[in-house]
């Protein structure tokens, strides 16, 4: 199939009109119409489908569909509204490229301005209408295995020992950007073997001191007088430890089996210590410990979903905010049946955010969301950047974590991740940034750190979005779209090499890139990615400030699609905060919800995301509002019936 490539430039001519007109249509959508919602929906759907078939279908169909975006469903059986409702994610992508004037490409038949605006308007009204309607459901999380961080933290909180055995486990695979996704966390045989060995080591370590034995088995079991007494004590101890290991009370059946295990050991002639070690090893190897089991009794389900019980909620909270087991308070609230109310869940979430264990959110959520974990393995060119070592890498990472931790502990606005006019430096990092007056290894808060604002000007992010020998404006721009604005650009079409790789072009990096953007296939996305990336060119591949790249003076000014201009990095940040704060809030909400749930988001999660974003906007984007919104959402507190 071929798509003609003639009227490429027309697209940009109408860009200026579009920006203004979109605002008008947004308010228009609120006006009540004469027809019933169902009528509107049906006729709108038909028109949307008609427009897409006319302007998109030619290139986006069949196995050769451009960019892998297939619209074949538009001509499949069923009513137009069904076609749209069952392909909402795709429709959302289409709306985004329509809004951003990325499609149709300039070499295809142009989509008239009016059709474009009407389509966007209709689709948004349709999506808005059924967001919280019939398709709303809590979704289902696949049973999650503890990942490495969760395993270590749980053992720490269970035994009081900081053993960190999980470093020897195979690394957990990542899905949807995180390593706590139920579907992706598999348990290969080698890991089972490691779990067994680890359980054995833990049982051995616990018995090294009286104090840790008592922490695990609170009732003294040495030197008992009679067999009857020994059995009673064993019962109590088994009860107490299994409640903490399984994160719920054990059933009578389970308790009986634990006692049987202990009595078998006794019959083998084992000493009391060995008997208790055997029990502990077994519990720490049980699927009820290694997985976060949410058992399904079909009787609990009403209309295909059920409310999680208090103990399940306690675990959801603790693994979300602490990457660890519930503490005694959560377990007690659960025992008393007090945890499941929205008020209590929100209250506990806030309490937990102020606990030192909430540092896990920085380690695991932030570290993966912003990809800070990559810093550990990045090796910038040792010739140009011989000074980059572990100390600098970890200082870079710490700076970003400290900003996040501060936002959490002071309940500040998440927008400060973008534009904080303060940061955290130690001597090493301050020197790297060319800032004087910071002495020692200790990090301290600093107001107005030069021209730096927010994470986009942190050494961490600037380094991990660079190639080993040089900056990559494309990577930086893509990183912003992926991780901050939630508008991931589609991957480049096959067989088109990365833009900046040509040996034939001359001039500055920017000139080279502009040359490449004359290829309309690339321009669609690169116009935006490159503008964002070039706005940050004043920072080199390891995040130092610079005025020149080689001999060329850096021109940090630029223009985002839609015509907004910026004069340099600080101005760019300001522009993002002013015009994109809701997109950013939505992006953070989606990432944190994904992390909290341990699954990728689906169409039916839109309603919850919208609700949270709305409350964020109303509360000056404060992070506690975000976390509260998540923990009281149906997604977090309920479960769909499993298939």
């Amino acid at each position, binding site marked *: 199939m071929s798509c003609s490539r003639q009227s490429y430039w027309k697209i940009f001519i109408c860009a200026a009109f579009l920006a203004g007109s979109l605002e008008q249509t947004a308010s228009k959508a609120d006006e009540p119409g004469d027809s019933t919602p169902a009528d509107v929906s049906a006729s709108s759907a038909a028109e949307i489908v008609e427009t897409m078939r006319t302007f998109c279908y030619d290139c986006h169909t069949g196995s050769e569909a451009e*960019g*892998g975006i297939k619209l074949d469903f538009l001509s499949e059986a069923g009513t137009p509204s069904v076609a749209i409702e069952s392909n909402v994610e795709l429709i959302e992508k289409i709306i985004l490229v329509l809004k951003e004037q990325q499609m149709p490409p300039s070499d295809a038949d142009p989509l008239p301005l009016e059709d474009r605006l009407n389509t966007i308007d209709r689709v948004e009204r349709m999506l808005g209408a059924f967001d919280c309607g019939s398709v709303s459901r809590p979704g289902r999380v696949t*049973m999650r295995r503890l990942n*490495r961080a969760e395993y270590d933290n749980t053992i720490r909180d269970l035994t009081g020992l900081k053993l960190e055995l999980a470093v020897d486990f*195979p*690394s957990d*695979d990542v899905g*949807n*950007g995180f*390593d706590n996704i*139920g*579907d*992706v966390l*598999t*348990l*290969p*045989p*080698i890991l089972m*073997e490691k779990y*067994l060995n680890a359980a054995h080591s833990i049982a*051995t370590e616990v018995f090294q001191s009286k104090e840790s034995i008592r922490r695990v088995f609170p009732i003294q079991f040495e030197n008992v007088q009679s067999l009857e007494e020994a059995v009673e004590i064993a019962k109590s101890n088994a009860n107490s430890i299994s409640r903490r290991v399984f994160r719920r009370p054990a059933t009578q*059946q389970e308790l009986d*089996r634990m006692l049987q*295990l202990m009595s*078998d*050991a006794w019959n083998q002639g*084992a000493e009391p210590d*060995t008997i208790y070690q*055997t029990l502990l090893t077994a519990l720490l*190897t*049980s*699927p*009820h410990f290694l997985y976060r*089991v949410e*058992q*399904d*009794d079909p009787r609990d389900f009403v209309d295909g979903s059920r409310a999680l019980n208090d103990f399940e909620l306690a675990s959801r909270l603790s693994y979300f905010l602490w990457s660890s087991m519930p503490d005694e308070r959560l377990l007690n609230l659960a025992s008393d049946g007090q945890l499941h109310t929205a008020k209590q869940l929100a209250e506990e979430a806030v309490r937990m955010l102020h606990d030192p264990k909430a540092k896990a959110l920085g380690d695991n959520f932030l570290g993966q969301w912003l990809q800070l*974990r*990559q810093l*550990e*393995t990045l090796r910038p*060119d*040792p010739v140009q950047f011989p000074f980059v070592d572990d100390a600098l890498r970890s200082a870079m990472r710490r700076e970003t974590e400290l900003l996040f931790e501060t936002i959490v502990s002071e309940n500040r606005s998440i927008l400060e991740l973008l534009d904080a006019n303060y940061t955290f430096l130690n001597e090493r990092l301050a020197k790297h940034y060319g800032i004087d007056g910071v002495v020692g290894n200790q990090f301290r808060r600093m107001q107005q750190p030069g021209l730096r604002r927010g994470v986009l000007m942190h050494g961490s992010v600037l380094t991990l979005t660079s*190639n*080993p*020998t040089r900056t990559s404006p494309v990577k930086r721009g893509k990183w912003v779209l*992926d991780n901050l604005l939630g508008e991931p650009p589609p*991957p480049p*079409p*096959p*067989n088109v*090499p*990365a833009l900046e*790789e*040509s*040996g034939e072009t001359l001039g500055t990096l920017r000139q080279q890139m502009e040359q490449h953007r004359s290829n309309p296939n690339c321009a669609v996305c690169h116009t935006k990615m490159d503008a964002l990336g070039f706005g940050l060119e004043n920072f080199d591949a390891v995040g130092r400030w610079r005025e020149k790249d080689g001999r060329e003076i850096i021109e940090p000014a630029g223009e985002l699609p839609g015509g907004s201009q910026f004069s340099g990095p600080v101005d760019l940040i300001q522009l993002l905060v002013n015009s994109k704060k809701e997109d950013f809030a939505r992006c953070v909400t989606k990432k944190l919800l994904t992390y909290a749930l341990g*699954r*990728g988001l689906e169409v039916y999660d839109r309603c919850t995301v919208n609700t949270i974003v709305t409350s964020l906007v109303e509360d000056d984007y404060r992070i506690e509002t975000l976390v509260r919104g998540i923990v009281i959402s149906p997604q977090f507190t309920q479960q769909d019936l*499993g*298939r």
Partner: protein
Amino acid sequence: MANSLTPRLSRRTVLRGLGVSMALPWLEATSAVAGSLPAAAVPPTRMAFIFVPNGVHLPAWTPQTEGYGFELPRILKSLSPVKNNLTVLSGLTHDKGRANGDGPGDHARSASVFLTGAQPRKTEGENIRSGISVDQVAAQAIGHYSRFSSLELGVDEGRNTGNCDSGYSCAYSHNISWSSETTPLGKEVNPRLVFERLFAGGAKSQVESGAKQRQALNKSILDFVSEDAKRLQPKLSRNDNLKLDEYLSGVREIERRVGLGVPSAKIDASVDYPVPAGIPKDYREHLRLMCDMMVLAFQTESTRIATMMFARAGDNKNYPSVGVREGHHELSHHRDDPDKLEKITRINEFHVQQLSYMLQKMASIEEGERSLLDNSMIVYGSGLSDGNRHNNENLPILLAGSGGGSIAAGRHVRYDTETPLCNLFMSMLQRMDVHVPFVGDSTGCLPGLSG
């Protein structure tokens, strides 16, 4: 030399070496009580698969002539000491590594398809699905003949993060071994842990007192947790039960090994190797240690099947030791720039040098009338052909070893393009005495391997 593999040294040295190691795996500590594996009359055939990312610079890889007596091209030069044990296979293809309607994501596909020959389902998380990899097909058929049904090795230590490749979960780009369509097998990256897993148990069991009681207790523990899992099964959904199946397979594998016993005589008769300290900073050293571990495992018949990733798909690390400061992936989009091609060639040479190190080691270990290398089949290659074009035909594939004398090595063989790489896998499985109707998209066996 610290890491040399000198055959036939005393049992004492081994035990001394093991004394350095930390807490011994509990699992192995009990197993000497049980019966041992019968010793094989003829050395078994081993097989391994080594993955390198981002394709290679083919003009410096492909020999000019076919058949015997070909000249080793630049990238393969370091293999000259083992040239007679080498078969260069040109023209093989992984069709399922292509988009086939799934759009971009060639790097993720190149790893997941490498040993499975299966089109991976494009998903970031939900319902991951690839295919069973050839090593696991073999492991499931003949793995029970050795203590470890297979070994999965790698070198990428850092924790995973973020998005890997265009809508594919990182599970696809970080693993080449899949024990089922839904279970990628994690890799061991720490040579110390591999070593301890392989050898510590055998020695410990010699000194363990009260081993019998221990074994009984351990059996009770395994029974207890299997019972937990079985009672849970009916209460879970289908997806949750897939997870629990993995758990139960893991327990079964352990039960098998506990019942099997460790052929410890084999270990102390043939091996002297210091316990590795851990993960070395230097990439080359790390690769060589992992290669040593694979050779040790084969030599001691701890396993017959292994896989190893020299790096993850799409890896972008630089290679300053060979003067390459740019990232590998970044360079692989070379657009025929001679400078970039030169650098890619150097990275390719570097990787092949490590392979050569391993193969030479295997060639030096005698097994009856042949060498360990003779008795093995080591496949080395990439799931992409040219990193710039991201194509999946005419893949760079080497086969080292002669599969116990069943492969006429020392040749360059060219097949018709589009011949499935899986046909090679079928031929290898036959030589492992594993008979299955197909692997991935195989259409038959690869003709002409025996000469």
